[in-house]
């Protein structure tokens, strides 16, 4: 059982969280976005082995946030609220 630090609620069990995707995956708007760019946004993932910067949601409080963690050791490196920025 991993402990994740919700920036609002403090450390909580992993089962309270849901993975939201790569941080910094900016959505391109428009019906005329080049299809490769759209597919890139929609499907391609960095999926790093090691340090990852990800969007998570703490389901019990509903807040999305950015967490950095190691995908091999499962060590959590940092977590921070989205801070009003869009598509962090």
């Amino acid at each position, binding site marked *: 059982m991993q402990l994740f630090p919700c920036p609002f609620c403090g450390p909580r069990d992993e089962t309270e969280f849901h993975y939201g995707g790569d941080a910094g995956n900016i959505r391109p708007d428009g019906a005329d976005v080049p299809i490769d760019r759209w597919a890139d946004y929609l499907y391609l993932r960095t999926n790093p082995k090691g340090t990852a910067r990800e969007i998570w*949601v703490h389901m019990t409080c509903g807040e999305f946030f950015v967490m950095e963690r190691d995908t091999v050791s499962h060590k959590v490196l940092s977590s921070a609220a989205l801070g009003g920025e869009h598509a962090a």
Partner: protein
Amino acid sequence: MTASRLATGGSAIDRSHPIRFSFDGATVHGFAGDTIASALLAGDVAVVGRSFKYHRPRGIWGAGVEEPNALVDIGGLRATPNTRATTEPARDGLVARSVNATPSALADRNAFLDRFARFIPAAFYYKTFMWPEWHRFEPRIRAMAGLGKVDADWASPGTADQVNHHCDVLVVGAGPAGLAAARLAADAGLSVTLVDDQQNPGGSLGHRAGEIDGKPAAAWIAETVAALASAGHLILPSTTAFGIYDHNLVGLNQRHFDGRPDTLWRVRPRRIVLATGAIERPLPFANNDLPGILSADAALAYLRRHAVLVGRRIVVATNNDSAYETAGALAEAGAEVRLVDLRRDGTPNAPANVRLIKGRALASASGKLRVDGVTLDDGTKLDADCVLISGGWTPTIHLFGQAKGKLAWSEARAAFLPGDPVDGIAVVGAAAGAVSLSEVFAGAGTAVASLGQTKAALPPRSTGPEATGGITAAWPLPGSKGRIWIDYQNDVTVKDVELAARENFVSVEHLKRYTTLGMATDQGKTSNLPGLALMAGITGRTVPEVGTTTYRPPFTPVPLASFAGARVGELMAPVRRLPLENVHRSSGAVFQEYGGWLRPAHYGGNADSERSIADEARRARQSVALFDGSTLGKIEVIGLQAAAFVDFLYYNTMSTLKPGRCRYGFMLSENGVVFDDGVLVRLDEQRFVVSCSSSHVAAVHARLEEWRQDRFGHGAVYIHNATSDMATLTVSGPNARKLLEMLELGLSLDDADLPHMAIGHGIYAGDEVRIARVSFTGDRSYEISIRADRAEPLWAQLRQAGQTFDAVVIGLEALMILRAEKGFIVIGKDTDGTTLPHDLGVDGPRTKRQTEFVGRRSLFTEEASRDNRMQLVGLTVPQGEAPLPTGAHGIKRIDGRLRSQGFVTSSYQSPTLGRPVALGLIERGAARHGETIDIQHLGKISKATITAPCAFNPAGDRLHA
């Protein structure tokens, strides 16, 4: 062997409480405090089971969790197959049977297999049974599988407890190292939890001599335990730490001996001290698997704890000092003891009355169902009724390995020891390679100091005689004569390891998988190291070059029920319930689960449900129907940017909606697929209610939150899920308005004031109600939302008023018929995970909208623009035929090959139309109305004609009638 119970002694047993139990049908006598194994030994039962493959006779080897041989099935209420006899307390009346033996361990009818052993070496099955085919052989081989038997009459003793626990320090193991570490940590002000797999603390001190701080070991143990307990620290006996998981969460298996299921503990300590001890290894010699050959340390434990003398004429074979105490104690207890030490020099002196033979090893043992003698490597024969072995000690570093700790090979100790430290974990005592009590205590002091404690007290001091660490490794050697067992339970011998090496299975993981070495229920606690050392010898590598296999949880088998805990039955996956469930039950509702909600399928009880459903659907069209639609989503979207927000979330433009009005629309996923449909209500300029489908409420809410926080920001929009706050009661049918008028809700029901797709606000019994003219039946309908806790009187009054109109209460099944008659879809039933909005005939926003919305770009891919997409259609059958089976496919032939061209998604007999109605997704269906196609279901073919989806009142005037 002629084992026996001594007249006196035995620290663990209570001679005032004799017990009796049965083993393989025979009665065994013992005392409270006996394990099944100690009682069997006391009764001189030599053969306790059969090995997995060759059905060799197996006797008790050890006295603890490492036991590879003595597995029994325990029957009765608490039946557990494959129970280790060495750790299971003997109980009065217990019924135990040997495993893998028919009819008994002593007379197993499959024992003949051993005679064919040379033809069935490791992994032989990969090389044969291919002709004519494996299927011909498998049933007979499969029948041989397994050890114990599942008891068909077993009944659950109740759900297992699960406990979450926090502490500063978790000490695993209450032997000298663990007790010392726990005491030091406690004295330093830390909260301590001390666990041990045995019923009594003390570990090896329970049967080995020791003097600590000038006191006998037993006194020191009692004093330490009392000090910990009185200071409020938690001590859990009979509790095994079976796994270290992510972020150093430790799983504990706590056993109870009062009928309760085991308890699962999830412990989150700040620091972990592993004081898990060490396990004695066998020595390699021919026939070293015979019953009557035991671990020397186990024999000492049985002697001192249970007063069981394991033999009369005993040979003790060793390569280290630890067996000398055993030899001496057995001689003192009256046995004739010959101690055969592999070492020529540097050995301790022979204990009193023990004949010491130095510089010799065992070459072989003899005997059939029990050992009757040994031959030394110089040819000397010694007769014996029991042979005790000490091949050295393997530190129990499983948990350290599970925590990804690296191991370091120690040539001096002939063992892997913990290597580089792991964050938050200290290893002490024999698990860290310590041999003497002085070493153990010094290590405990250092370990506790390393936990960051400044005021650590001084560790205890050993004041008795000290063990020495001298050992001469004695690994199995390639080319050895005879059959030398390495893994007793799985029947892996030296020759099997040699075969694996010969065939290039030299990686330690290949060795394990090819030979099954270490894969038995004991997980190789006695066999892994000898096996890989042999592989090192065969391949000319060092032991650390061969390495170990991965340590995996659990350390010892854990009951499955422990992991399930209370998640049994409905608690395994709770259903959501309606506020009026009890009212519906008293009305004869038959409930079913729909999308996680328990809802009335129909009323009128279980008898003739098809007729009940048809009646409900027919009568709903005739006058008026009442329906509990409380599951309908009610998610409020509030704020300055609420209109822009719903525009982005919906496929349809929603910002043009006027306050007080509703609009039907789709929500798409970013891949363009229709995710949900429903009605959006605009309460006022900055306030909307998302009325999503029942089964999607949580998911829609999550999506709204995600987009709100990601794209709009916290200040722009606020979202509140009010679904369970309010009940929604629906009145539908030609007389719906008339019925509603009888309630005096304080608002005008005039169509000019409350037209279709508008909302009104009223008051019922002092509570606000929201009334929406929204229809899922195609008839005039009113959805009345009211505080959930005030819904019951409203429902009662609706029913009472309904009597005037012959109103009918309908369940979900009738509603499904009504909406299907109209061609109204249910997302996930009439659509699948590829359905785009234009497949459902809603192309406007796709072609016309200029503003951004979720999923937009995906509506213009190559796939989305394909001209043969599956589209929503109605389907009719030739007159007089039964409804199409839902799930039947439209078929066609391309180049002679059968192909699907879509499928039936909804299909019902319409009681109003007097004929079947159906919906489907059919290739290019929108352009094929009137075409008749072949439909296939479970091999049978029928016809259906493609139509528009709406079969009932296509003009739609009943909405206003």
